[in-house]
């Protein structure tokens, strides 16, 4: 492929990976989201310039499991910190410090506290990245003009081709019925 001269082969047309619909108001995106949700789509998302109240309900998003990951991290950190304190102070290298018992809970609590907080935070940060499948180095959406104003004043709905009930024609028709500004196909 020569730069500036993309080869265009109609037969080997790149596959449609998603369909994007652009809206210009909060009300429109909320209404559109409800329709898409009710149509039974599951692999889809909305992109807005700011957090929109009620978008979770409109999209039918289930509560995240992130708190459980944080709890898991916290418990691991708590027990790990305790084990670390025991192993280093009381087992592997017992050393008398200011007349305190080798394994003494009050002295170990700061360590346990810190490891609990650390692993909870890891659970939150890496759990969030994992659940969002981040980071992505490439996303075909960025090639689309409709998507460029999503950080400014536009609201978009993106339905992915991996959705079980995705069909280029029917999905496009559905999105067109929601009175968007425009509907585009996203190629890989």
């Amino acid at each position, binding site marked *: 492929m020569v730069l500036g001269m993309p080869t265009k082969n109609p037969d080997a047309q790149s596959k449609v990976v998603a369909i994007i619909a652009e809206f210009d108001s909060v009300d429109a995106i909320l209404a559109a989201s409800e329709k898409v949700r009710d149509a039974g789509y599951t692999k889809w998302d909305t992109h807005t310039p700011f*957090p929109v*109240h*009620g978008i*979770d309900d409109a999209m039918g998003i289930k509560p995240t499991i992130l*708190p459980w990951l944080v*709890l898991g991290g916290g418990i691991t950190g708590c027990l790990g910190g305790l084990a670390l304190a025991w192993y280093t102070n009381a087992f592997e290298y017992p050393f008398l410090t*200011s*007349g*305190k*018992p080798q394994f*003494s809970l*009050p*002295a170990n*609590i*700061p360590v346990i506290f810190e490891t609990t907080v650390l692993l909870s935070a890891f659970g939150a940060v890496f759990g969030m990245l994992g659940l969002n499948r981040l980071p992505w180095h490439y996303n075909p959406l960025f090639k689309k003009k409709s998507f460029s104003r999503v950080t400014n004043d536009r609201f978009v709905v993106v339905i992915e081709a991996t959705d079980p009930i995705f069909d280029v024609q029917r999905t496009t028709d559905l999105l067109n019925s929601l009175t968007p500004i425009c509907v585009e196909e996203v190629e890989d």
Partner: protein
Amino acid sequence: MTEQETTQSPDAGNVSTAGKLTGGKLCIPAVGAMGALVPAIILAAVGNYGLTRFMFAYIIAFAFFLSISLGALFFVCIQHVSRAAWSVTSRRVAEVLAMTMPVMAIAFLPIAANVWLGGGDVYPWASSHAHHASAHGEEHADTTHAGNDHAAAAADHAEPATGHASLTARDEYAPDEKKNAHAADATQHAAPAQEVVVDESHAQPAVTLDGHGRIAGVIDSHTEEIYTAKKAAYLNVPFFIARWVIYFAVWIGLSFTFWKKSVEQDSTGDVQITRFLERFSPLAIVLFAVTVTYATFDLIMSLSPAWFSTIFGVYYFAGCMLSIFAVLILVLSFLRNKGMIDKDTVSKEHLHDHGKFLFGFVVFWAYIAFSQYMLIWYASLPETTFWFVARGATTVAADFNTWSIVSIALVICHFFIPFVGLMSRHIKRTNATLQFWAVWLLVFHWIDLWWLIMPEMSVNLKVGLVEILTMVGLGGLFVAGAVWVGSLNAIVPQKDPRMTESLAFKNM
């Protein structure tokens, strides 16, 4: 504040936020409840400890209700300094609770009287003997080399302390009625000046050593006297009274300013009021921090005048914040159930946020409580450990006493159980469970104060009708004050510029 917000103010009045506390008649039973103080006094008077018992119960109850007033004041300060919108609909309740401060000032009078009449039965430094000793203590400090504090001397002498010394300390400490022992001891030492003046060997704290050679740390009453004497410039009756006048002047002034200005906005809707309170609240927070720290030293810490802990004010502050969020949850739920506040004005979303703060301050309390304990435990200096030994909060089995069970109960029931219990979002968003934990934490907040205060009277657990009736009596006064102030105006701010934003508040 943005310009957009300022233009919102006229609309806010149109929303159905016209909450009104119509409980004027609640004042009468509340005032009637104050009658419970009478049987409390009689019951105490015929008991072993006499009126001293009542005074200790009274200080616990006073500290409990004062913590709610102070927590409310700080809550209001924080909402203004952070320009919070979510809390606007619940802010008036806090303003009203903070306005119980004048009532608390009246409630302080019996404590002032006790100190003024100089019995020293409650605050040892207030006794006439303490005055006597302190005068010499001052001399002593002046005549000997400055900066040589007894703490250092004590530490040096701790080393050679023998089993003999430990026996003395224990015997002195063992009697059930510590105060009586103290008084008896005081008469022995109420001797000529020479005896108090510099005899370093007398200054050494008698130290108990446990089986492992660790210092259990109980100071004898003679050492306690010398430590107390060094503090006489601060811990004396006139200065104590003067400080409390200042505390209440500051607290009443701040509470009144926040409440008055907020009420004024109900009718005028003037955005300048919000701006003024935002500028005013940082100053209020500084004044609050200083006064609360010293008030805690005076009210609770000076019950054991030889003891010192710089974090003690923060410890009480943690209790203040815990109790105000618990009380806000209960009061707001009550007002919603009675239809005095619309269920959408203070919604599940707002209560959820109060619940988050309640959870947060459970952790904060534990953090502060442990910080205080760990440093004293780790350093193991007799002049600070004796306070925890008196509460049986020790890792030395020989020092366990009846208070030990309360010390352990606080760790478990004031931290671990509510920490796990309040963690879930669903529990904070369900009214019944949130209220359950609010009540639970208020009960343990009281037990916490009881644990701070009562061991100074008795080394054995003391709780009974006297404490309960005193709580009912002082609670009556507090509720009557709050209901009266609350029924003067709308119980929800009417034209706050952030009202619309507050009503729309949702947890994401």
